[in-house]
């Protein structure tokens, strides 16, 4: 197969004026919506999405159609939220979708809202994407003007409003209950589950939260059919996935691949291998919150949910970070621990204190003031955080921390043995916004 045959989500990337309604419609845009509200109806749409095997692309990989099925059938008011908070370090695919193909996201959002009979759809975009918020709002205005939103959509009697909501700089608002709280006008702090938002979410009503890429996959499934979608990917990981690739490879950026592709092929053929003079050391496959793999482990795995789980990591958001040989792993984990410490919302003691401890212990090691016991202490602190908090942010810090320790322990130990001589990096280590 030609690489272009896999382009379901990215086929309009780079098309001139692809973000405009006229161009989208001329390429078959909004036909899936016509089909959904015209002949299929909500139950059939949900069924097709279930059959397609489409799994949530925001990180957890939960089957989308199954989640929609959790909305109580007798609910009077239902809300739908599209998660475009995209703050997971290494991830920038949703931004490309909204940038180059906003109408595909909007059409997918309307169809998904229709499937659960939502009356309001909120697209939550992180505040840093200022230009993207303007662009998305423009596209939403176009969709309203064309009768795809508002009262009596395409004569079906279905009514849906859409709000583009601007975040204001908080990673935790990407967590679905944090996101819902944020839209309510509260701090974006997550809530204990259950109840799950599909039963009780925004304003106490059933609310479905899906990632941008998830909803953007829906029009293709309705237009081309379940089989066409399943023609890509594996049994348990159906379809295609966008990977956002960063680090010194020849072709960084957003790439769409069929799930199940061997990493080796992706690395060599899509990414073009390492940039001049660089050597591969390690790979973070699915955003900064998943365990790191060594180059060798990476080369022997495939890019799908089950293979990556077998390899000891996760597909996550598909934010692939390529780490070159010249990088000091302790320095990189310091950057990440600072991030999680900064972004902990502070509700749970293990997370609030634990992320701070991890950050400070790593910093101590980097200053050349650490001991071998400190390395064990890192492990111990991780043990007191994982699985013990309201939301998975604590785990998101623990997974990289533990995997860096496991796979690159020698680099941590070297800092202890060298402690008599402060390393060249110590000035920065001391000053890293502490």
């Amino acid at each position: 197969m030609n690489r272009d045959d896999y382009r379901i989500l990215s086929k309009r990337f780079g098309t001139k004026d692809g973000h405009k309604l006229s161009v989208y419609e001329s390429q078959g845009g909004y036909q899936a919506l016509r089909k959904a509200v015209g002949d299929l109806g909500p139950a059939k749409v949900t069924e097709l999405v279930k059959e397609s095997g489409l799994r949530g692309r925001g990180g957890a990989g939960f089957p989308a159609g199954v989640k929609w099925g959790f909305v109580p059938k007798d609910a009077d008011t239902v809300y739908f939220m599209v998660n475009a908070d995209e703050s997971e370090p290494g991830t920038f695919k949703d931004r490309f979708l909204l940038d180059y193909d906003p109408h595909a996201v909007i059409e997918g959002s309307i169809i998904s809202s229709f499937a659960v009979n939502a009356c309001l759809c909120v697209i939550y975009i992180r505040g840093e994407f200022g230009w993207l918020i303007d662009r998305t709002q423009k596209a939403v205005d176009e969709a309203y003007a064309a009768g795809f939103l508002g009262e009596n959509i395409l004569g079906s009697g279905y009514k849906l409003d859409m709000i583009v909501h601007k975040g204001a700089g908080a990673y935790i608002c990407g967590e679905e209950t944090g996101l819902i709280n944020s839209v309510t006008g509260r701090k974006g702090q997550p809530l204990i589950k259950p109840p799950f938002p599909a039963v009780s979410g925004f304003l106490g009503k059933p609310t479905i939260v899906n990632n941008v890429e998830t909803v953007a996959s829906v029009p293709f499934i309705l237009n081309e059919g379940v089989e066409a979608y399943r023609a890509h990917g594996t049994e348990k990981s159906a379809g295609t996935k966008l990977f956002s690739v960063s680090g010194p490879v020849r072709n960084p950026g957003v790439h769409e691949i069929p799930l199940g592709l061997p990493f080796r092929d992706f690395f060599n053929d899509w990414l073009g291998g390492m940039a001049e003079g660089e050597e591969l050391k390690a790979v973070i496959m699915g955003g900064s919150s998943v365990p790191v793999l060594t180059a060798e482990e990476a080369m022997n795995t495939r890019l799908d949910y089950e293979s990556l789980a077998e390899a000891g990591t996760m597909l996550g958001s598909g934010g692939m970070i390529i780490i070159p040989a010249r990088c000091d792993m302790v320095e990189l984990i310091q950057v990440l621990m600072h991030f999680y410490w900064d972004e902990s919302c502070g509700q749970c003691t293990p997370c609030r204190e634990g992320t701070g401890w991890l950050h400070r212990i790593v910093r101590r090691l980097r200053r050349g003031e650490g001991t071998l016991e400190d390395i064990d202490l890192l492990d111990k602190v991780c043990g007191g955080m994982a699985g013990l908090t309201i939301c998975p942010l604590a785990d998101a810090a623990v997974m990289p921390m533990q995997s860096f320790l496991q796979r690159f322990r020698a680099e941590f130990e070297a800092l202890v043995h060298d402690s008599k001589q402060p390393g060249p990096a110590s000035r920065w280590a001391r000053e890293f916004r502490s």
Partner: protein
Amino acid sequence: MSDTKGTGDMSAQAAGAKGFFLPGEDQEAFAKIVEKYPTKRSALMPTLWLIQDRHGYISDEAVTWTAEQLEVSEAKVREIISFYFMYRDTPQAKYVLQVCHNISCHIMGSRSLIAHMEKKLGVRRNETTPDGMFALEGVECLGACGMGPCMQVGKHLYEHLTPEKADEILDGMRRGELLPADTDRDLED
């Protein structure tokens, strides 16, 4: 540019609490926000954005006004301002330079970029130049990881930065000119 610093149109009519002003067009925008959101409280974040885009920050008067209009306590409004990194309750430098220091940009050289900018501006990270022109901030991932290192200034995102490119951008700002950013193309239509 209202998105880097709003000086505000103080000639417009007074609205609500203690001399806090929002010009007419913003009043209309505010009314639309309240209409669009299902509860008054859910209109809080967009209202604060409206105020900050106009005035550059959210003043005490603005807090009082917002609390009155949306029928929430002032404490709840302040809580939101302090929880969310992007809301500011003090006047900001003319150009707030937010350089990503997270992992992908770090791998691609953001550390030396920041060091270079510190030297050029004569300030340390998270400080403002004495003339109030530039604030240099290290920030977390900006969603441009494959195009790093990167820097955000208001709504403008500069990608693939080098010390030389950063110099050009800063020199432009000193002349009062905002060089085109990598995301500006998207604003054309």
